[in-house]
């Protein structure tokens, strides 16, 4: 048993050594150097990379863009996924069919979707007359900072809402029927049941979804890379775009590594705060 266990897990141990432990140690060294991927000279620069990153307007832009996107993305994805889950759950038949259907956006490659979105939002697209009728003018979607953030957030919400809906759906299906029956006997109406039973009982699902959704906002790459390049005016300049730009365009490996450390710290802190807030809400609802 002893030996077999180690033999069978040895591929993992080897993999972790090469692709986890070594890169980890390497990154701890990299952040204190000014290596530019080409020069044979590598200087130890102490905390310079971090100091520079904290002062950099580009890093500030990345920091704020994550929260701007979150501000649009969280309400959109929560409303969409919850609505879809409630709708599917209320259907007498065909739930599996609709679950599969609404999950389909999750399967899309961001690259393909970006292509479609750019086509639809183009100035002379077939959708342009509709926008013109709605807004009086054809919006310059990617030329306006708020609209650009809105579109990027909408795309990500579109992708994830079916996935999150499944989490909510699983939560909905675990709510005991007796609760609703008892409430109906007391004359509770739709909204009373929704706010007094359904949403509180969905707390575990909310918890999972929110933690996932918040963490996601600090790791966005494909959509802005394809559609805005971080613009206009760095409104959609995400953390990953900045890391990509510094390391793979500017070749500043040490500086880029420092930014990725800052990104990890900011993500961790933000998720922790959301966790604490959620736990407070959970305690108020009587969850441990």
């Amino acid at each position: 048993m002893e030996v077999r266990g180690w033999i069978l897990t040895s591929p993992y141990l080897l993999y972790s050594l090469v692709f986890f432990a070594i890169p980890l140690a390497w990154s701890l060294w990299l952040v204190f150097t000014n290596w530019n991927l080409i020069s044979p000279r590598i200087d130890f620069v102490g905390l310079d990379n971090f100091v520079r990153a904290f002062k950099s307007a580009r890093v500030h832009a990345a920091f704020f863009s994550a929260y701007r996107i979150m501000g649009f993305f969280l309400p959109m994805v929560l409303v969409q996924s919850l609505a879809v889950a409630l709708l599917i759950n209320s259907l007498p038949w065909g739930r599996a069919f609709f679950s599969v259907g609404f999950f389909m956006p999750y399967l899309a490659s961001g690259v393909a979707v970006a292509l479609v979105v750019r086509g639809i939002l183009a100035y002379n697209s077939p959708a342009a007359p509709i926008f013109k009728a709605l807004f009086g003018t054809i919006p310059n979607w990617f030329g306006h900072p708020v609209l650009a953030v809105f579109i990027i957030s909408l795309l990500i919400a579109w992708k994830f809402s079916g996935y999150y809906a499944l989490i909510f759906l699983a939560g909905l299906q675990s709510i005991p029927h007796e609760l609703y029956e008892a409430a109906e006997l007391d004359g509770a109406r739709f909204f009373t049941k929704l706010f007094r039973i359904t949403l509180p009982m969905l707390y575990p699902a909310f918890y999972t979804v929110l933690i996932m959704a918040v963490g996601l906002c600090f790791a966005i790459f494909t959509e802005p890379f394809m559609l805005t390049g971080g613009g206009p005016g760095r409104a959609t300049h995400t953390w990953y775009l900045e890391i990509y730009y510094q390391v793979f365009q500017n070749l500043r490996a040490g500086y880029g590594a420092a930014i990725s450390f800052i990104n990890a710290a900011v993500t961790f802190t933000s998720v922790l705060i959301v966790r604490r807030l959620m736990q407070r809400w959970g305690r108020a609802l009587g969850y441990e």
Partner: protein
Amino acid sequence: MNRRKATFTGLKYAAAVILLLISIFPYIYMVLQSLAPWDQVNKVFIPSRLTLRSYIWLFTGTEALVAKPWLRAFLNSVIVSVSSTSLMVLSAAIIGYALAKLPFRGGAFVYNFILFQMFYPAVILLIPTFLLVKAFGWFNTYWAMIVPKAMSVWAIFMYTSFFKSVPQEIIDSARVDGASEWRIIFRIMVPLSKSITIIVALFLFMARWEELLWDLVVVQDTSMRTLNVLLATIQSSYNPYPGPLYAAATILTLPILLVFLAFSRHFSQGIRLVLGK
């Protein structure tokens, strides 16, 4: 009263269908544009007639700026995604079995380390892993795209938690019959966990097929690019040819959709197991 209820149910189905159509509208638009005559691409929602010109141009076009990179890119995607996914599923089944069913000293530590790795921010490893792969001389090769993505801690975790629920008696009686560990894993454990295998494999394949950042940085030659990366990087030079770009996007998306729909029977059960963790 009953009639009102029936109307209400009907309305709910109507709402579900409309919402679903909006949800998959980008797919519909993409496929229709890829089949549209070139003078109608990006100009109408529904083309007046359908043609395969964009697809034919993509794979045989002499007008192409780069000679037929698409077929090669598609093959690159297939090679990379299939090998990477198979390795991830295979290793996860073996390691998951060892962690769930072979009590050995240090096993708990390995398991906890996997959990730690799952929640460790991957972004920190991006740059050093890139440097490592370059140091191995793997820049511009399949190795760079396959080996660092040959194992998934998430998949190991999934298999470990699922295998734990398999009754020990099944394994013990197989051992009495003289079955090897190998046989137990691939003849008993994996077949028993069909729905989890399908979902894990589908998620891993999808993530691998659609990887952008990693495949973008470890490969520079156009001939080594995956379809996803090629489509992402070539768009500006294909501006006069939107039709073929939609065709490429369709070819990029369709395999995943078809695999997903083919296994959708197992989806509801499998996804619940995955989400339950």
